[in-house]
């Protein structure tokens, strides 16, 4: 069991990808390192457990990547998904560093594989972890342990002693005991606050009670809040979070990737009043899936239903929960507790508005509606082949954007703009610096690995001086 009474060179708060990369980098640079993970050993790793790939720039195809992904292209992708809400200097630095991270991770035991079935579009840009995120974590933990990183499980940082931007010690609760852990430097790598429903309610009101949290229940933002309260500069929109529509039958926390539904484009989506509320065929799914969490969050009771018919059932990946099935729209309404007359009317109106076209779900096809609001711009086909199906969906929160401001050294900046003497941040807790809004697959892991490695390196250098 990790000795929490010793003084360390580096204290890492958190136990996910960013924390491990920081701990390993610092240890390899010669520092003594203690890592405090608040979860049990099984649940260690926060949201990294649910990840599956990392986006790194590279100049040539590799064994598992189908082609080059130049730095500039990565930056343009980032600009596009964030709509410009990024810190260009930091972002470009991250992208440049990601090139060597691509090789650095396998040196720490992480294994890649070609993109998974159904994710061909990411085959050139994203390296998939063989066995998924937990496999990646297991490798990093084994490496950290063998290097001599002290790892404390069920050890939560509950207080921070910070004097004028200088970290002095942390209070760590482990089991029934409280320890004052002293270290020369501090790395915060312990996530955002999406699991803290009370905090979410400050911005979303009672609607947040109906949110499902896709990852760890531990990302309560305790350390983030303490840092901001003690003078660290904040960045990123505190009111925003990344939200997708997931199966409403998913558990409150930790349902992970498998509760997602990729069938919006094949049908129509109605709210609890059985009415449509947004263009389901606006854009190809990978470009639009992330808006549906917010859209559903804005509907009454934060619930919606994806409706489709038998002709679409096998067009998308099999789902975790079975679709709700009925022989008629009326019966389906009954099973969903929707007003059958309104639902019938909605479907009839939609069907009547569908123009003839050639259906092709791989392109922006010419199947569209005319004369209804909202329209369905592509892939619009009549719901007319029984049986009819529905998935209930709710907003599934992935992460939050509120962050501690950092510089290129991953060093936290204080509210007066001065760099902290010895505090660093990596991963979701500082993601908002480069990811002001939006998301593209694998970027969370890029931020975690790149800034984790930088934070570890810089903390070690800091501790030496």
């Amino acid at each position: 069991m990790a000795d929490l009474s010793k003084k360390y060179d580096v204290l890492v708060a958190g136990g996910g990808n960013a924390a491990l990369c920081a701990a390993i980098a610092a240890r390899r640079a010669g520092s003594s390192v203690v890592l405090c993970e608040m979860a049990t050993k099984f649940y260690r790793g926060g949201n990294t457990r649910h990840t599956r790939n990392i986006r790194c720039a590279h100049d040539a195809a590799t064994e598992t990547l189908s082609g080059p992904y130049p730095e500039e292209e990565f930056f343009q992708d980032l600009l596009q998904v964030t709509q410009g809400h990024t810190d260009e200097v930091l972002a470009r630095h991250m992208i440049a560093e990601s090139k060597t991270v691509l090789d650095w991770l396998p040196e720490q035991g992480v294994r890649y594989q070609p993109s998974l079935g159904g994710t061909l579009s990411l085959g050139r840009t994203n390296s998939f972890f063989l066995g998924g995120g937990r496999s990646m974590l297991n490798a990093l933990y084994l490496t950290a342990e063998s290097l001599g990183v002290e790892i404390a499980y069920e050890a939560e940082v509950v207080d921070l002693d910070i004097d004028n931007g200088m970290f002095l010690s942390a209070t760590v609760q482990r089991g029934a005991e409280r320890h004052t852990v002293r270290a020369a430097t501090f790395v915060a790598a312990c996530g955002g606050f999406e699991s803290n429903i009370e905090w979410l309610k400050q911005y979303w009101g009672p609607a947040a009670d109906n949110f499902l949290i896709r990852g760890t229940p531990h990302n309560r933002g305790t350390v983030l809040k303490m840092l901001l309260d003690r003078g660290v500069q904040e960045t990123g929109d505190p009111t925003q979070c990344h939200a997708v529509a997931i199966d409403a039958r998913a558990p409150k926390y930790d349902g992970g990737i498998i509760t997602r539904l990729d069938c919006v484009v094949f049908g129509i989506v109605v709210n609890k009043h059985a009415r449509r509320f947004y263009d389901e065929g606006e854009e190809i799914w990978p470009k639009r899936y992330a808006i549906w969490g917010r859209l559903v969050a804005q509907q009454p009771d934060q619930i919606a239903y994806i409706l489709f018919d038998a002709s679409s059932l096998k067009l998308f990946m099999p789902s975790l929960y079975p679709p709700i099935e009925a022989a008629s729209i009326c019966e389906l309404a009954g099973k969903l507790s929707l007003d059958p007359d309104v639902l019938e009317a909605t479907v009839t109106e939609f069907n009547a508005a569908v123009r003839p076209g050639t259906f092709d779900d791989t392109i922006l096809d010419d199947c569209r509606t005319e004369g209804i609001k909202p329209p369905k711009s592509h892939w619009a086909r009549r719901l007319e082949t029984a049986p009819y199906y529905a998935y209930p969906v709710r907003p599934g929160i992935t992460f939050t954007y509120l962050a501690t401001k950092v510089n290129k050294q991953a060093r936290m900046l204080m509210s007066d703009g001065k760099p902290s003497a010895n505090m660093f941040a990596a991963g979701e807790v500082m993601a908002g610096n480069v990811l002001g809004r939006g998301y593209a697959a694998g970027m969370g892991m890029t931020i975690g690995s790149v800034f984790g490695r930088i934070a570890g390196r810089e903390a070690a250098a800091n501790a030496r001086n």
Partner: protein
Amino acid sequence: MLATEKAGARPGSHATALLAEADRLMTVCNSCRYCEGLCAVFPAMEMRRAFPDGDLNYLANLCHSCGACYVDCQFSPPHEFDVNVPRVLAQVRNESYAAYTWPAALAPMFARNGLAIAIVAALSVAAFILGFAAWHDASVIFGTHTGPGAFYRLMPHNAMALLFGLVFLYAMVALAMGLRAFWRDGGVAPLAGGLWQAIRDAGTLRYLDGGGIGCYNHDERPNDRRQFYHHLTFYGFALCFASTCVATLYHYLLAREAPYPWWDLPVVLGTLGGIGLIFGPLGLMIAKLRRDPIMVDEPHLGMDFAFIAMLFATSLTGLLLLVLRATPAMPLLLALHLGVVFALFLTMPYGKFVHGLYRFAALVRYAKEHKAFTSR
């Protein structure tokens, strides 16, 4: 409507509760697919959207129990999704052995296989010793016999050959019938190809490697050596079998009678194989004892142990016989050895031995499917 039953559960009929659970797991896994690169089970799963019993038995027998998907899974217990693929597929696999047994009336043998093996072995040994004694006078059993034909002074070669020929033939028929039932239950497979690929995959134990870095057994470290011990066991068995075949050819074609000198082919093959069959089963047995209980199909452990123990006993008695064949212990050891081998053959279709056949058949099916799928 929003009440959650166990995630992934589907309405539908399965022959057993375990098959229903396997269906649930494959449904969960099919909506995740993170383990796609670890082995053949998950790519085979991805070629399907629904999982009838025959398919589940196929997938279960395709699983080599490397443990990687359990260690890598974010939903393994204590997570509420309770995804424990290695254990459930081990359970389904063991159930499937009984389901495909020929004749079906002997299916209950699997459930009590540890016990059954012990009883059959004891009876076989007793029968052989009595047989020796009956053939000659009891004093033969404690005499010293050397030179060509020494073994057959206890029991004539033809009697021995007849006895083993019959039991071997029976085992082959029973195994073939089981294999046929297993293959048919998996549905129609593409006709062409797959055999050579499957031979390579089985011969190298390609999927007993934890997806490349080694298997998991007692914790999250991939330092398990079951692949090595299984190679010792399998190739040891193959060498022993080859030794028997060569000796039979010697006997009938060259009229050369056992025992053979130490440098002769049957003895060299048998000795090398025997050494493999000593250390292989020992390693596997130790690995079994150390395995994380959460991945183990507890009720069927006896069957695993019984088979490993029989292989070990076959080899041990055979090697002892080799070393002590010029002493008065020979007749007793020969009786023991033949008794154990007899029991091994007789119980083959009703114990862990069948895993090799079904897994090989599953690999053939997978190779065929994979080929058809990728060429599409």
